[in-house]
C-alpha cells in the first residue's frame, strides 16, 4: 500500500508544481503578485547556473536527492516532464487498450550522451547557447510564455468586450521567431510523449541524461524481485521510461524517472521494491560479478561517487568561471540587457531564455531577442524601447530570474543601475526641425538627465547629462521624431553606476495672495 501512496503523492506533487510554475508564465493580469516565482529556483539548470552567483544549496539538494532515490526530479519537479505525463494521459483517452501499452525499448545512449557531452563542453567553456535550447525548464517556460500566454491574452481580450472589468492587453512583445521555436519544441515533445512516454527525457534532454548518469549510483533503487515476479508485464506496459527489461529482470536506472507507475501496476504488489544498492550479498560470488547485487562490474562505492560528482561539477564551474565567455566580448552592443544582469558577459553566461522575466515584466519592455545578441543569444530577453520603457523603480525581472542571470537588485540599487546611456541627435529633434515646443523626452526622464534649456525664439531644447542617465528608455520610447528618433539609448556592455540624483533645493515660499 505504501508504494501506491508513493505514486499518488508523486502525481499530486507534480501537478501542484506544474500549475504553480505555469502561473508564473501566464498570469498576464499579475493577479498572484509573483508569489510562486520562488519555485523556479528549484529547477535543475537554474539551480546549477545560480550556484555561482547565489546559493549552492538547491543544486546540492537536487544532486543529493538523485543520488538517494534516482530521477525523482524528472517526475516531480520538472514541469516539462509533468507536461508530457499530462499529454500521455490525454492521448490515452483516444487510444484503444492495446495501443496504450508501452514496451521495453533499447536505450539511445549514444544520442543522449553525445548531446549531454556537447552541452557540457559548451557550458564549461562559458557558452550557454546549447543549454538554452535544450534545457527542459526553459523550453517549458518558452512554450508557456510564447504559446499559452498569448492565447490567454487573446481570449481575455475577446472577453474584455463583454466584461468591462477585464483590461484589454495589446500583446506588444510577440516575437515570431521565439514563438516558432517554442512551437517546434511543443510539437516534438507532445508527439514523442503521446507515442512513446518519456522518450524525449531519455534521449534528448541533457538534464535527464545527467541525472540518469547520477542515478546509476543512487543509494536506493527500484529492483525486480525475480522470486515473486509473475512476468505478467503489467509494470512494463505502464512504464513511461520503457526501461524495465523483464527478461533480464533488470531496470535501466539511467532512464527510470521514478514515476512509480510500475510499483502501483504490479499485480503481485511486491515484486518491484526499493533496495539499498550497497547492501552486500550474504554470499558474494567467488569470482567475477560484484558483491553488490545491483551494481555492475567494477562500480565503485557511493561515497566516492558522490564526492566525485560534486567535485566534477565544481571543477567544471571553476573552469567556466575562468574561461572567457564564448562570445561575450562581441560587438553586439545593440542589445540592452536587463538591470541586474551586470552586462553582456554575465547575462550571456547565465541566461537560458526561460522567459520568466519576459512574462513577469509589468511594462512589457522585455521581449525575446531575434539577432540582437548574435546567433548564440537567440531568444534571450532584450529591452525594446519601441513599444515601452523600463519602469524607474521596478526591479521585478531581477526578483524573478531563477538563473542568477539577472541578480536581485533592491529598488535603491535599481534606480542607479545604468544599463545604457541616452544619445541625443540634435538635427533629428522636433524642436530643431519644426521649431516648435516638444520636450517629450524631458517629460519622461525620471532622473532629469534631460533638461530643457533655452534654444531660440523662446523655445527649449533637451540637454543631456549621461552621468545621471540609467538607460531606462523613457526618452527613446516617447520621442516623436520620425523616421529616426532623436534620442536613443546605447547599451552599456558592462553596466555602470549612474550618478545619484541631486535635489534642486528651493526655498519653501509662503504666499498670502493669489497673484491675480
Amino acid at each position, binding site marked *: 500500500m505504501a508504494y501506491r501512496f508513493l505514486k499518488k503523492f508523486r502525481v499530486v506533487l507534480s501537478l501542484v508544481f506544474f500549475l504553480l510554475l505555469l502561473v508564473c508564465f501566464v498570469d498576464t493580469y*499579475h493577479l498572484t503578485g509573483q508569489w510562486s516565482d520562488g519555485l523556479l529556483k528549484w529547477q535543475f539548470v537554474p539551480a546549477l547556473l545560480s550556484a555561482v552567483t547565489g546559493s549552492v544549496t538547491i543544486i546540492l539538494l537536487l544532486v543529493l536527492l538523485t543520488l538517494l532515490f534516482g530521477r525523482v526530479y524528472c517526475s516531480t519537479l520538472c514541469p516539462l516532464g509533468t507536461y508530457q505525463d499530462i499529454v500521455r494521459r490525454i492521448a490515452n483517452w483516444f487510444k484503444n487498450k492495446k495501443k496504450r501499452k508501452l514496451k521495453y525499448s533499447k536505450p539511445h545512449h549514444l544520442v543522449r550522451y553525445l548531446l549531454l557531452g556537447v552541452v557540457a563542453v559548451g557550458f564549461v567553456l562559458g557558452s550557454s547557447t546549447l543549454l538554452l535550447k535544450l534545457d527542459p525548464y526553459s523550453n517549458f517556460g518558452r512554450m508557456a510564455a510564447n504559446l499559452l500566454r498569448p492565447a490567454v491574452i487573446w481570449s481575455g481580450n475577446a472577453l474584455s468586450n463583454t466584461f468591462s472589468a477585464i*483590461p*484589454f*492587453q*495589446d500583446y506588444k512583445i510577440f516575437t515570431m521567431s521565439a514563438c516558432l521555436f517554442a512551437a517546434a519544441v511543443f510539437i516534438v515533445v507532445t508527439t514523442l510523449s503521446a507515442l512513446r512516454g518519456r522518450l524525449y527525457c531519455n534521449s534528448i534532454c541533457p538534464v535527464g541524461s545527467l541525472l540518469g548518469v547520477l542515478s546509476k549510483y543512487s543509494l536506493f533503487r527500484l529492483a525486480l524481485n525475480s522470486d515473486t515476479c509473475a512476468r505478467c508485464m503489467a509494470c512494463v506496459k505502464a512504464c513511461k521510461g520503457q526501461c524495465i527489461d523483464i527478461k533480464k529482470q533488470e531496470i535501466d536506472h539511467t532512464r527510470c524517472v521514478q514515476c512509480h507507475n510500475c510499483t502501483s501496476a504490479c499485480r503481485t504488489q511486491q515484486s518491484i521494491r526499493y533496495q539499498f544498492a550497497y547492501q552486500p550479498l550474504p554470499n558474494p560470488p567467488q569470482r567475477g560479478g560484484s558483491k553488490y547485487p545491483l551494481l555492475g562490474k567494477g562500480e565503485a562505492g557511493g561515497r566516492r561517487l558522490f564526492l566525485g560528482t560534486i567535485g566534477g561539477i565544481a571543477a567544471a564551474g571553476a573552469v567556466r568561471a575562468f574561461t572567457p565567455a564564448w562570445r561575450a566580448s562581441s560587438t553586439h552592443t545593440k542589445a540592452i540587457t536587463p538591470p541586474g544582469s551586470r552586462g553582456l558577459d554575465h547575462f550571456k553566461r547565465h541566461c537560458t531564455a526561460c522567459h520568466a522575466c519576459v512574462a513577469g515584466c*509589468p*511594462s512589457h519592455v522585455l521581449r525575446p531577442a531575434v539577432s540582437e545578441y548574435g546567433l548564440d543569444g537567440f531568444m534571450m530577453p532584450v529591452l525594446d524601447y519601441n513599444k515601452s520603457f523600463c*519602469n*524607474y*523603480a*521596478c526591479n521585478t525581472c531581477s526578483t524573478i530570474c531563477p538563473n542568477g542571470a539577472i541578480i536581485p537588485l533592491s529598488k535603491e540599487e535599481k534606480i542607479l543601475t545604468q544599463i545604457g546611456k541616452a544619445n541625443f541627435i540634435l538635427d533629428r529633434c*522636433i524642436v530643431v526641425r*519644426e521649431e*516648435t*515646443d*516638444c*520636450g*517629450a523626452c*524631458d*517629460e*519622461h*526622464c*525620471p*532622473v*532629469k538627465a*534631460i*533638461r*530643457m534649456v533655452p534654444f531660440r525664439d*523662446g523655445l*527649449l531644447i533637451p540637454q543631456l547629462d549621461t552621468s545621471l542617465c540609467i538607460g531606462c528608455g523613457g526618452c527613446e520610447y*516617447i520621442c*516623436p*521624431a*520620425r523616421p529616426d528618433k532623436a534620442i536613443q539609448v546605447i547599451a552599456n556592455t558592462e553596466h555602470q553606476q549612474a550618478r545619484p*540624483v541631486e*535635489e*534642486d*533645493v*528651493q526655498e*519653501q*515660499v509662503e*504666499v498670502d*495672495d*493669489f*497673484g*491675480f
Partner: protein
Amino acid sequence: MKRRNFLKTALFGGIAGTLTFKPYVLSAKPVAAAAPYDLVAVMGGEPAAMYAKAIESFGGISSFVKKGQRVVVKPNIGWDKTPEYAANTNPALVAAIIKDCLKAGASEVVVFDHTCDDWKACYKNSGIEDAVKEAGGKMAFAHEEKYYREITLPGAKRLTSTKVHEAILNADVWINVPILKNHGGAKMSIAMKNNMGIVWDRRFMHANDLQQCIADSALIRKKPALNIVDAYRIMTQNGPKGRSLSDVQTPKALFMSTDIVAIDTAAVSFFNQFKKMPLASVGHITIGHDMKIGTTDIDTLKVQRIKL
C-alpha cells in the same frame, strides 16, 4: 444648494445679462448662465474643504450634474508617483468631487487618465484608484487604443482629428481636474494640458506644434462642464514628472472655473509667486485666447477670492 435656489440664481443671472457681455467665454460652458462667478480661487484649506467652498459659489455641483447623468472626472494620473510629489492630482480632491456628484444623483462617476508611466502603477501609487473606489466611483481602463474613438475638432489648426477616450464621449458631463505643474515641454501643465490625457496619440501632438495641438484639443465638442485646478501641492520645477520632494511647494490652493483658458491664466499668475513663468511663454494658453476658446483677460471676469 437646492434646485429652487439654483433656478432662482439662474433666472437672476440671466436677467443680469452676463450672457451678452462675454459671449465667447460662455460658448465653452454648457450651464454657465447659472454661475454668479466666472472664476473662484480658494486658499488655505484641505482639498475637500476648498472644493466645497468653491463649488458653493457656483451654486453647488447640481449646477453641472443632473440626476441620472453619467459623469467623468478627469484628474492627472500621468506618473507613477505618490501624492506628496505633486505629479498627480490630489486623491482627496478627486474623492470629494466624486462623492458630490453621486450625491447630486449622478448615475455613475468614471475616472481615468491616459498615463505616461505604467498605468497600473500610476493608478495605484497616485492614491487615486483607492480614493475613487472608496468614494463610489469607477476607474476606467485607458492604456490601449481600443478604449479611444476618433473625433474631429472643429476649428482646430493642427490637431484636426484625434482619438479621444470613450468615457468622455459616452459621458453626459465631464469635469477636468488637473494639478498645477511646471512642464519642460509645454512650459506649464494645467487644465488645457490635462486634455492630453483624454487623447490616445500624444506623440502626434508633440511632433506637430505641441502648443497649438494643446489649444486645439480644447476645441473638443464635448467640453468640460467645469475645470478644477488642484494647487494644494504644486510642482514648481523639474515638471511634469519631478524627481524629488524639493520640487514641490504646498500653497494649499484651488481654482474653479468654467473657462479653461481663464483658469490656466489665473493658475499661471499664482504660479509666478513661486517661479517666474511669463504667460506669453505658455503658448497654448495665449493661443487659446486668440482662438476664442476662453480668455486670458481675467480682469474682465467675475472672480471670487476666498481664504479659509
